[in-house]
């Protein structure tokens, strides 16, 4: 309700000191950078955890401290951090914050104070989460899905404090995400500049906008399950806890429904996939169009596909629960909806490819990442069709096939977009370009590396190798060669992990030493590249807000000097540009 206060207080909160400018800032650009740096930092923790897990899988027993409990804790924290605290925060809090006001021509978010609070709540949630590494019993090892009863029953690591801190941290994160989401949605609805109709917004904004709506509607499901599980854990209620005998003792709980938790969790969990994927779809559309110098193919279709995916994502959740036991008709229903959601998704893939077709493709670093996204997402999406069918899913469930599928589709693919988007918008954020050679090296190692990691995992899954196992000794059905493959995957995974240092170095180095970029190094038509200052100053636009006259995709326009028309150019100005160009050509052709 803080916006009540905002109704008529001073508008733009011009920052006065270092403290209000960079720390306690209400400027969407600063908040975006705060969000991004926090997300990347916590993501590095998750990356290290995955490296430790891979060492245990590839070379069992080589890490002394890695016992089964530690492995489960690393696995849980890796999953939760990557999905929620890195991907969600970076796409919505990072890119959403930075791009929405600039792309729709606003001076800031509609509720800057709430926006600032959103970041501080996010930071608090991260600190609470990380603090669980230092409490007795360590962080929870319940798996990122936190299924009860095991997540709060003795025997699972971290049932003392870890699980409580995890649930509290999630609740705080949801508060932060809600405050952020309110801002993103309201800003898009209310603060677009003159001429910026909904169907002239760049697809980045559409993707983030729809993802914010999904987040606003889906995160409450996680909130409900977190609160009810906290009650079960701390107050001894039995929302989710059935009668259980644990360590020879009958627990005080009875009658609760673990399946109820699963429904609530996945009612959040599946839209969450699209909370991550839709911004990636949007951003990658803009990267492809800009770097192929061609308008996005089927813009309106792309928008409607984003909306359709958003709506459908709420009716597919139980495809995560085929092996949990449910009414067979439910399985039929959820398999059908899952396959239907592939239609708008495939539409988008076709449209990206058709955008590239006959395009003037510039193989810049952002474009390389965008192209890699298309193929990676395609592979991950196709295995999704396998897993969406009940009868195929049941034998593959809980195997490495699933691990490979979701890492490809919602791990690697969105991360590739994040990298591409950072290389693409870095010049706007800092005024400098990132180093191209380092960028290409980073790209090739990451792209080829992730294929070497996840492609073989499909085979491991088909061999029946179960996921979430700490060790595979004495399982006769797994051949010896699987171990060799695992060792190979580990070596590649560590290489790719270390290679991210290249990216971080490039990021830090380029802030100070990068080549000056100028206002619009990629020749992009969308509004954020037309700011009077680069990097944009507080208030973004100088005394006058920009007026928008066209969509964001006028590339390779014939008859003018530059090959693109910025969104701010009116029809008359375009006509003048044409005439000037024609005159210049006539002058040069004259003998």
């Amino acid at each position, binding site marked *: *309700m*803080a*916006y*009540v*206060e*905002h*109704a*008529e207080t001073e*508008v*733009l909160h011009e920052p006065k000191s270092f403290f209000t400018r960079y720390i306690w800032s209400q400027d969407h650009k600063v908040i975006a950078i705060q969000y991004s740096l926090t997300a990347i930092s916590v993501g590095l923790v998750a990356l290290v955890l995955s490296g430790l897990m891979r060492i245990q899988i590839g070379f069992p027993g080589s890490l002394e401290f890695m016992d089964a409990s530690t492995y489960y804790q690393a696995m849980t924290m890796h999953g939760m951090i990557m999905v929620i605290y890195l991907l969600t925060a970076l796409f919505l809090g990072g890119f959403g914050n930075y791009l929405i006001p600039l792309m729709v021509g*606003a*001076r800031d978010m*509609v*509720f800057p104070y709430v926006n600032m609070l959103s970041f501080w709540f996010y930071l608090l949630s991260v600190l609470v989460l990380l603090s669980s590494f230092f409490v007795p019993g360590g962080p929870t090892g319940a798996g990122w899905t936190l299924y009860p009863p095991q997540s709060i029953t003795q025997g699972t690591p971290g049932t003392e404090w870890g699980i409580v801190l995890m649930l509290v941290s999630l609740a705080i994160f949801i508060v932060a995400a*809600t405050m952020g*989401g*309110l801002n993103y*949605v*309201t800003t898009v*609805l*209310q*603060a677009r*500049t*003159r*001429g910026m*109709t*909904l*169907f002239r917004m760049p697809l980045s904004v559409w993707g983030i906008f729809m993802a914010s709506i999904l987040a*606003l*509607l*889906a995160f*409450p*499901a996680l*909130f*409900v399950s977190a*609160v*009810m599980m906290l*009650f079960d854990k701390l*107050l*001894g*209620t*039995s*929302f989710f806890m059935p009668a259980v005998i644990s360590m020879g003792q009958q627990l005080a709980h*009875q*009658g*609760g*429904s673990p399946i*109820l938790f699963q*429904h*609530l969790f996945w009612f959040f969990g599946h839209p969450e996939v699209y909370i991550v994927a839709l911004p990636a779809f949007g951003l990658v559309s803009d990267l492809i169009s800009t770097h192929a110098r061609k*308008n996005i193919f089927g*813009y309106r279709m792309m928008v409607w596909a984003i909306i359709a995916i958003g709506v459908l994502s709420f009716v597919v959740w139980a495809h995560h629960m085929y092996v949990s036991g449910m009414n067979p008709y439910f399985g039929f229903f959820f398999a059908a909806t899952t396959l239907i959601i592939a239609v708008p998704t495939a539409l988008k893939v076709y449209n990206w490819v058709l955008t590239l077709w006959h395009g003037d493709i510039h193989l810049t670093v952002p474009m390389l990442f965008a192209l890699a996204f298309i193929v990676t997402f395609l592979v991950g999406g196709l295995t999704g069709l396998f897993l969406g069918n009940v009868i195929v899913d049941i034998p593959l469930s809980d195997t490495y096939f699933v691990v490979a599928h979701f890492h490809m589709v919602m791990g690697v693919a969105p991360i590739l977009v994040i990298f591409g988007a950072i290389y693409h918008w870095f010049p706007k954020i800092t005024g400098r370009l990132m180093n191209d050679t380092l960028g290409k090296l980073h790209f090739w190692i990451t792209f080829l590396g992730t294929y070497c990691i996840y492609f073989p995992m499909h085979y491991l899954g088909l061999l029946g190798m179960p996921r979430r196992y700490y060790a595979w000794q004495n399982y006769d059905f797994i051949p010896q060669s699987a171990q060799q493959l695992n060792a190979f995957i580990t070596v590649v995974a560590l290489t790719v992990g270390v290679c991210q240092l290249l990216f971080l170095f490039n990021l830090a180095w380029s802030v100070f030493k990068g080549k000056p970029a100028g206002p619009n190094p990629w020749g992009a038509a969308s509004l954020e590249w037309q700011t009077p200052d680069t990097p944009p100053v507080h208030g973004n636009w100088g005394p006058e*807000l920009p007026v*928008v*006259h*066209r*969509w964001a995709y006028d590339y390779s326009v*014939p008859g003018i000097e530059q090959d693109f*028309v910025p969104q701010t150019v009116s*029809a008359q100005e375009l006509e003048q540009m044409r005439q000037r160009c024609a005159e210049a050509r006539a002058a040069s052709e004259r003998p």
Partner: protein
Amino acid sequence: MNGPLLKNTESAGSGGRWSQPPGTSRVPEGFDRAKAAKVGLRVFLMVVTSLFLLFLLAFIARSQMADWQPLTDPLAPLASARQLWLNTILLVLGSISLQWARLAARRGALSGARLGFTLGGVFAIAFIGGQLWVWKQFVDWGYFVSANPANSFFYLLTGVHGLHLLGGLVAWGRVGARFLRRVALSQLASSVELCAIYWHYLLGLWIVLFFLLTSTPETYQAIAAFCGLR
């Protein structure tokens, strides 16, 4: 002219606001704060709706388990819902007061707005007091939070609803402080309106909760069957 490339460019498209000539009166930051705040509140209420809908679905699903002991049994605390009816009346009065304040503020009647606004908050505080009284009765009767899922849900749902009202009271307090600082009514009208919308929403939500919490197991069964949970 290159047709397909310049699609969407020359025409304003649906809702093309820019077709007005430039320089018409628009606020410098490019949008209407009061309207944006109202939209923001509506979006927030959408989130709260999603939250309570999920709580209630969990409630209905859990009520179908064998160990559910209805609070409306003859010897259970909700056999008579008198106290809850009283609380409901308090909340209705709060909503009416704020609506009165909203209309008065729109007319520019300061005293009416101030009185209605104050009463709206006071009735809300009284409602929360009444709810706490019901909780105390529950405890006195031995209906603790973990004793039975029906109790757990009663505490959970009334608690979360109360917390939302408390959040509203924080906003109410901040607007109230501006009333005391004698900020012009025209500047407060939109804040009063936001409070009123929020109060109405929480009243509607409470009526749904009230109905469900005091319903019989047969009603839950019917709803569960309707939702495919049985």
